């Protein structure tokens, strides 16, 4: 049944989903691109942490900014070498999605190549590592140990959400980001430098996703496939937020995480559903939510109650 372990798991998994999904929603809102390189942000964040950890950097306080910087740098690089030139040539968002697919393939295998070299340098298998970095002490509650990195994750999540909230709602740059997200043409007319705003958004999103990847490595494991394995869940979380609302993305993170842990545990204990059904539960939760409460309204805002309306009209 539902015990403290399930609750704890829901919390940390939900936090990391939230940290990775919010930048996905934000970058989609501002640029309308379904960005495949988001997968690589996660993996890059994880492995920057791993490599520094192997060099002896044991404190999360130092690893977090490092991951953030790398993630942000790659995101901005993408913008300049791929998305910006393509947009200038009149490519529609679908083409940009495929361009990001090409970049994803490139980065994925570049990471493999770097890890291959790293294996020769560090003489240890880098394809599967758990860097238990920490900066806060653990606390024991009876039989359960709340490890230091758990508190660190809570702290990091709190800080990130606060900073993001203040940034987006109180500062000028935040208003600029929201303006570009809602109506790019109007924003540009009213003098907002769209290019710069988009670059800043990319930097934020890439960095945040990288932090999520680092936390994932510390809590779970770092493999070159870590981004690919997570991305479907992250997409599910963003879709619950309708790819629009950051608040609902955050809530969606905990819904999916809760479904995977708590709901799965209940089903397993009462109905004997094997735990190998866990991905089934996540997607069922997603489908139930978007079918019951479509994020953009029923029919995506379009008057699809066609037959019913027609019948009413005939009557």
């Amino acid at each position: 049944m539902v015990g403290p372990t399930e609750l704890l798991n829901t919390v940390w998994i939900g936090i990391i989903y939230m940290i990775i999904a919010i930048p996905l929603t934000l970058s989609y809102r501002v640029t309308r691109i379904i960005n495949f390189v988001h997968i690589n942000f996660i993996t890059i964040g994880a492995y920057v942490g791993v490599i520094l950890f192997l060099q002896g950097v044991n404190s999360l306080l130092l690893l977090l900014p490092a991951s953030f910087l790398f993630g942000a740098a790659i995101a901005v690089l993408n913008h300049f070498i791929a998305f910006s030139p393509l947009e200038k040539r009149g490519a529609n968002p679908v083409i940009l999605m495929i361009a990001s697919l090409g970049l994803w393939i490139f980065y994925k295998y570049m990471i493999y190549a770097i890890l291959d070299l790293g294996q020769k340098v560090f003489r240890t298998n880098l394809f599967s590592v758990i860097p238990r970095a920490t900066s806060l002490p653990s606390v024991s509650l009876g039989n359960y140990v709340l490890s230091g990195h758990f508190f660190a994750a809570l702290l990091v999540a709190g800080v990130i959400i606060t900073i993001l909230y203040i940034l987006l709602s109180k500062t000028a740059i935040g208003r600029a980001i929201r303006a570009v997200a809602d109506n790019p043409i109007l924003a540009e007319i009213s003098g907002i430098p769209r290019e710069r705003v988009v670059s800043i958004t990319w930097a934020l999103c890439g960095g945040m996703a990288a932090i999520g990847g680092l936390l994932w490595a510390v809590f779970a494991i770092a493999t070159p496939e870590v981004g690919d394995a997570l991305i479907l869940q992250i997409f599910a979380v963003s879709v619950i937020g309708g790819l629009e609302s950051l608040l609902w993305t955050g809530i969606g993170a905990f819904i999916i995480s809760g479904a995977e842990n708590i709901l799965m545990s209940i089903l397993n204990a009462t109905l004997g559903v094997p735990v190998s059904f866990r991905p089934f539960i996540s997607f069922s939760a997603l489908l139930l939510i978007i079918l019951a409460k479509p994020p953009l309204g029923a029919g995506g805002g379009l008057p699809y109650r066609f037959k019913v309306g027609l019948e009413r009209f005939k009557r």
Partner: protein
Amino acid sequence: MTLGFDVLGFLISWITLFGTYAIISMSLNLEIGFTGMADFGKVAFYGIGAYLAATITAIIFLVVNGIKCPLHSVEAIVALKKCASKNPLLNIGTFVLCLFVTFFVTGGIGYLISYPTLRVGPAFLGITVLSFGELLRIFMRHFEPTGGTKGLAGIPHPLAWISNPRLRDGIYALVILAIMLLTYLVSERIANSPFGRIMRTVRDDEIASLCLGKHVPRIKASVFFLASGFAGIAGVLLAYYLGSVNPDMFVPAVTFNVWAMVIFGGMGNNKGAIVGSAVITFVDRISFVVNLLFPEAIISPDYIRWMIIGVLILVTLLFKPQGLVPESPMKSPALKIISDELEGDNGA
């Protein structure tokens, strides 16, 4: 060409792959290119088609030869191997039967799936179908009668009675090309018909077409039916080609591969889908040459190979932001009259 490289074999294996992916690409193009439906779940119908073909073939062969054992067991695999080449008519008959049954079954499933996707709206159609696909895949992993995670193996090839493997593979490649051509003709006919025009209006401005009284939900459902049917047929071809099916072969990554082919080749026209799938499958097959260039490098040559492919996709898109083959105007009778007139003027 006496390079010691089997060029004919390469061409045959490439054409088989290209044909199968071209069919799925054209079906995806019907959805996104003509009707503007961003479907991220194509692999689900591909998988349903493959599983249907594998199951029906295995059942028919085992029943005809009077063998009673679970489809996925060793005995079944060995028995299927033995009776694969005895009765040519049975092989070909099963193949044709599977094609027909699969088209209608997967088409029907596609039609049904269009209902929930209407509820969420066009923006979330992709993720909805993808979720259904994943649900189905995880279900199949646990579904024992078709082998669960083991899947089915030893599926008798429709041409297994031809003993020369080169001839068999070659003829199969030609069969796939024929089916691809058929798909192309059907898709072109649909695209250049009044129904095609309605599809394009749904893509360009859905609200306007609703205002003009077009029954958009029914149009979308019909397109889904056709496209899913074609994807199912491609699945049948795959099942016979590999000779085995397994739920983990049908993951979302395959869908995104097909998306790359459609976008790369150019949305909104069937030639583009074919060109896109040809180029991407060709590059995929020929890229192992990189492995031969860097035999004992510091890093595995496979990594370099895929990095190059990623860069190629990006660079090509930079040069051709609309895809390789841009969309051409619809070939309606009106267009024909006008272009004849114009040519007549120029000629005269």
